């Protein structure tokens, strides 16, 4: 049986395109620095950035900073995305709840989460917990809003069919609401991931001594420009990994999507 679909066939191609484009840009950069038009202080060549990455790895800083950031992203995402998802489903299914919660969401969603950090630190102190809360909030809102939209746009006909065959509330949730909103939920997860990466780095720049954001700030303070770039490269890689992860989940969990 052939199960090839267009999407699967195209997938490796686009990944290779990404690699080729990025390698081409890096090579151009390297050449421009070596030939002179790009000043190496501001634009350390990719070879120097790579050297710096090796140095960070050997010295254990990569593991320390990168690991710290990963833990913060993971914890914030886990808590924020799952609660945002639950809140989105609840609001999508309950008109009453939606009417009450909509204005609150509307007011809190646009607040830059980094702006809430000082307030949260007054409550929870300057330790990890205040960071986790702010990062979780960054995941919570996009997840809530995407899930809510996903649940709301399910055509009535699917509910009618399911009810006609005797589905109760639980069966409706499990067999209609969850699968039908899954594409929107995964879209929300992707936005939540981006948002979490932004806020995590911002929080680390503002108030941390560890993490990739802190590494950026420390590198700036001692003018280690190539380290600064190395940290940016790591964050970019994180973003790429996140995107690929969500795309993988879409293929794995939404095989019925054209």
């Amino acid at each position: 049986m052939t199960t090839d679909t267009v999407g699967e066939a195209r997938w490796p191609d686009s990944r290779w395109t990404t690699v080729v484009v990025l390698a081409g840009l890096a090579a151009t950069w390297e050449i421009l620095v070596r030939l002179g038009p790009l000043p190496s202080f501001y634009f350390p060549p990719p070879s120097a950035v790579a050297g710096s990455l090796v140095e960070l790895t050997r010295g254990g800083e990569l593991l320390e900073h990168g690991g710290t950031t990963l833990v913060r992203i993971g914890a914030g995402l886990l808590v924020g995305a799952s609660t945002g998802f639950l809140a989105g489903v609840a609001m999508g299914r309950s008109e009453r709840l939606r009417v009450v919660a909509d204005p609150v969401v509307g007011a809190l969603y646009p607040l830059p989460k980094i702006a809430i950090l000082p307030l949260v630190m007054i409550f929870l102190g300057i330790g990890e917990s205040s960071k986790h809360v702010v990062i979780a909030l960054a995941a919570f809102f996009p997840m809530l809003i995407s899930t809510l939209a996903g649940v709301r746009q399910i055509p009535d006909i699917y509910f009618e069919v399911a009810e006609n065959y005797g589905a109760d509330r639980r069966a409706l949730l499990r067999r209609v609401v969850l699968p039908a909103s899954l594409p929107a939920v995964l879209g929300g997860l992707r936005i939540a991931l981006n948002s979490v990466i932004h806020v995590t780095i911002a929080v680390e720049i503002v108030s941390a001594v560890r993490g990739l954001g802190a590494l950026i700030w420390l590198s700036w303070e001692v003018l280690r420009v190539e380290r600064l770039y190395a940290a940016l490269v790591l964050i970019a890689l994180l973003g790429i990994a996140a995107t690929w992860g969500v795309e993988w989940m879409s293929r794995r969990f939404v095989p019925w999507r054209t």
Partner: protein
Amino acid sequence: MTSTVRFRCIDIAHGYDSPSGEIASLDGVSFEAEGNEIIGLVGPSGCGKTTLLKILAGLMNPTSGRIVLEREGGGTSANALVFQDHGVFPWLTVVDNVAFGLEMKGVRARRRRERACDFLRRVGLLDFRDRYPYELSVGMRQRVGIARAFVSDVPMLLMDEPFGSLDAQTRLLLQEELLTIWEQDRKLVVYVTHDIEEAILLGDRVLVMSGRPGRILEEIPIPLARPRALAAPDRPDIKELKWHIWHLLEDEARRHLSIPE
């Protein structure tokens, strides 16, 4: 096995609120049906056919009037709806779609898969059991929706223009298939369509509805023997019936299009 059912619609009316006041969609609809007959319900578009079907299905309540439903044998739900399109769940494979009614009744996974596969084998869809609906043609999707209704062990099927969006050839093939399936597993079917010939081909009786608010203009028995072939309605007396129904509907249809009489 399947229990039999008998229902009476008594003076069903339905209205809904719109910005321009209340709109009556059904008015004084009464008819009864029982056993394993097929009732063709024709009427101009917007005459409340779908509303009537949803009321019969228990998905909507009439504004006034009532439905008396009597059935022998047990079971949770008495009917299964088949819609024109989008009736099958895109996120379930063919076999899971077909087994959905049994799943909601609490039939065990292995048993309901067997039952679904048996039916799919009968209609030649077995090879597609693990496909998703997007991989099927529109006509095949409709067959999945009909398979689900038949597999669900309900005595009454409510079909809302199931072949309405199909091309003419596909429609003929599926009408033939529906007749075959029904001959093997006779249920009470209420078949809504705007296609007069289809109503005559399938129905033991044809109920002709007026434009909004929908009421039953006439009930016409179709004197054709079963099992029926596609060519059965070509008899002169049946042709006459077709034109008789057309004349009942013509004025409504013209008004709908603003074509002068």
